[in-house]
């Protein structure tokens, strides 16, 4: 397949994942804001904006952190070029670019989702509509992934799509954890206080892991448990270990199909070695923040190497 088309596929799925992760973060923020007093709610919205790396842009365009301004900024505001509406536009543009490499089912899933979302986001989103918007974004992701799974040949195109998905997802989970790392350090232990339990629960909600974490840990929430779950539990599809393993599998498939390992495979091997036999104590000994920054750097380098190795750009 063409390098340019592979680029389209890779980014189509990165943007799709980014839109979904943004929606989940927003959904967790919404829930948090509803169950807290005004000051805590504002702090929560500020934290959501900061996690998305949009603090400077947001504050240049808005006076304070209220819910309506925040979610409209994230979802559709032109002052934020990385708004979800634009992301979904990028999903569709890249799908058009890669049209001949995706199945009709995948294309229709993207196109119909885009039509619906673009209409929903063409006007400011009010209190009554935001829940439905967020749910629509999540469902769009599910539908496209479902179509991919059920209708695509497991060839190069599929593996570029999956690699894009998990490079993006790993980045997102790491960033959310990193933003909250100070809450998760055991040395700053507020175990048992309702604020912290709520904050930690919010972290889990942002990555759709709240229900499953409670189930695994019989409702006990603590910092070690959360870090262990989100970093090391390779059964959880949004954990760092799972994402890294998935990218590794996709790259191995590409190497098999192309008959050669290239520079991204070497970076992948080094990254895999770090995760091997890693314990939660190792992570806290080293420093959670340092660990996460290293993860994100390696993740970005792998993404760049894929683009370079497979000739995404002229």
């Amino acid at each position, binding site marked *: 397949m*063409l390098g340019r088309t592979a680029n389209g596929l890779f980014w189509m799925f990165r943007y799709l994942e980014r839109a979904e992760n943004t929606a989940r973060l927003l959904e967790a923020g919404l829930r948090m804001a509803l169950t807290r007093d005004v000051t805590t709610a504002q702090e929560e919205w500020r934290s959501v904006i900061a996690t998305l790396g949009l603090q400077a842009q947001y504050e240049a365009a808005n006076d304070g952190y209220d819910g309506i301004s925040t979610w409209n900024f994230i979802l559709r505001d032109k002052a934020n070029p990385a708004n979800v509406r634009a992301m979904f536009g990028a999903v569709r543009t890249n799908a058009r670019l890669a049209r001949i490499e995706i199945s009709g089912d995948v294309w229709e899933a993207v196109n119909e989702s885009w039509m619906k979302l673009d209409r929903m986001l063409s006007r400011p989103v009010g209190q009554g509509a935001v829940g439905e918007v967020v749910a629509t974004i999540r469902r769009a992701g599910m539908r496209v992934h479902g179509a991919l799974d059920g209708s695509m040949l497991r060839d190069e195109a599929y593996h570029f799509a999956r690699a894009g998905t998990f490079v993006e997802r790993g980045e997102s989970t790491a960033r959310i954890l990193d933003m909250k790392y100070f809450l998760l350090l055991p040395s700053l232990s507020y175990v048992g206080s309702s604020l912290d339990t709520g904050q930690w629960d919010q972290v889990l909600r942002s990555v759709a892991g709240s229900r499953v974490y409670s189930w695994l840990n019989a409702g006990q929430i603590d910092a070690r448990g959360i870090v262990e779950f989100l970093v090391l539990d390779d059964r959880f599809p949004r954990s760092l270990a799972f994402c890294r393993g998935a990218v590794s599998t996709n790259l191995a498939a590409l190497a098999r199909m192309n008959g050669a390992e290239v520079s991204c495979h070497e970076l992948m091997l080094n990254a895999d070695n770090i995760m091997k036999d890693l314990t939660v104590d190792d992570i806290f000994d080293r420093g959670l923040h340092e660990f996460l920054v290293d993860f994100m750097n390696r993740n970005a380098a792998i993404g760049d190497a894929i683009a370079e190795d497979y000739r995404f750009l002229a």
Partner: protein
Amino acid sequence: MAGKGSESASNFDEMKQPDGGVRPAYADYCGWLDEQDAAWLKRKSSEADDSFRRTGITFNVYGEDEAEERLIPFDMVPRIITAAEWRKLSRGIEQRVRALNSFLYDLYHRQEIIRAGRVPERLFRGNDAWLQNMVGFTPPGGIYTHIVGIDLVRTGPDEFFVLEDNARTPSGVSYMLENRETMMSMFPDLFSQVPVETVSNYPRRLARSLAASAPPGCAHGKGGKPRVAVLTPGIYNSAYFEHAFLADQMGAELVEGSDLRVIDGLVQMRTTRGYAPVDVLYRRVDDDYLDPLTFEPESVLGVPGIMDVYRAGKITIANAPGTGICDDKAIYSFMPEIVEFYTGEKPLLPNVQTWRCADDDSLAYVLDNLSDLVVKEVHGSGGYGMLIGPTASKKEIRTFRTKLEANPQNYIAQPTLSLSTCPIYTKKGLSPRHVDLRPFVLFSPDGIEITPGGLTRVALKKGSLVVNSSQGGGTKDTWVLKD
């Protein structure tokens, strides 16, 4: 073409006879239609749009802000042609396409037709579509016009005329295919009751036809077959949907200029595994943008050096560069002579009577009769830059007269034909509208194939004669009945 309020008894209605009886072509369809519930049909008509939007069959329109996507309106009443009518049409089309190809070969070689005094030299000297660097070069298999769309109009039971030849980069074939898909999913029972020739094998035929046109010894694709690629200007081009659609259906690559590079004397595309040669390029970019080294130096749509590879016989470009000269309306006016010169036969499909304003006598006639004529620019397309005398205001005619007098060789004129009508579905029931027809022709060393059907364009506005999608025209599914 007809003037205002033209759906009079003088118009040929393709469905109904003057006495109100149904013509044979539409007998089965009307039988089916009579049994359908009116409310159900109304619901169906609004479903069609949704289905087109979902599949993304749109074309881009450039507004002031950003590119916006629109649908070409689809009408659910089919346009129907009998098997006997189609046989006659396809013979005429085949004759015309062979003549066009021979004409191009001659024009770029010995120019016998000019030496014989049948067409004047000025037709191509100074014509922008003429390519000097095609002179003396023979494209692989001697084929210039791999894909042609011939625009036909009808005025009576046996009266079909050619209105235009589209040999440059004819478009619209995706609508022929998707209109049929839409009709079949909307009205499956209809197709079990009326025997209609299939059009869905067009992409396979196109793939085969293009592969058969590859240069000898050039076969770099899967299974030792030639590798075919569709060259598109990119996702912002108005016809991008069609480019992607055809590439997808053919199993061909979809490339942009930036994907291609000349390496080791071959045109190669940048794949994830390195550069790989292309043997046949179905290009949907104009000649001017094909090779910045040879033509438009600023072009980013093309491939530097591709013309050298082409002239070395290492790639097929479809259609051949320099083919666009056939779309010129001044050349069109000589088609009866051209057909006769190369086939030795009378044209089976007549031209519309055409006055060349370059000739003094014709110009005088045209100036005297502007309010009755249709006047077109010789290089124009898409229904732009033309005057429709009978519907034009006095002021429009005055303005056009000035332009015509200043540059008469830039114009031809035709009578306003009484175009046939076919009904469309409206909220108030069926209502006749003017239609034309563009069948699609494939030409390779293996022969000529004409898909039974084509693109029917319909003027949706009552009385209008302009069927172009850029100006409010719609499309219909086109049926050729089986015997």
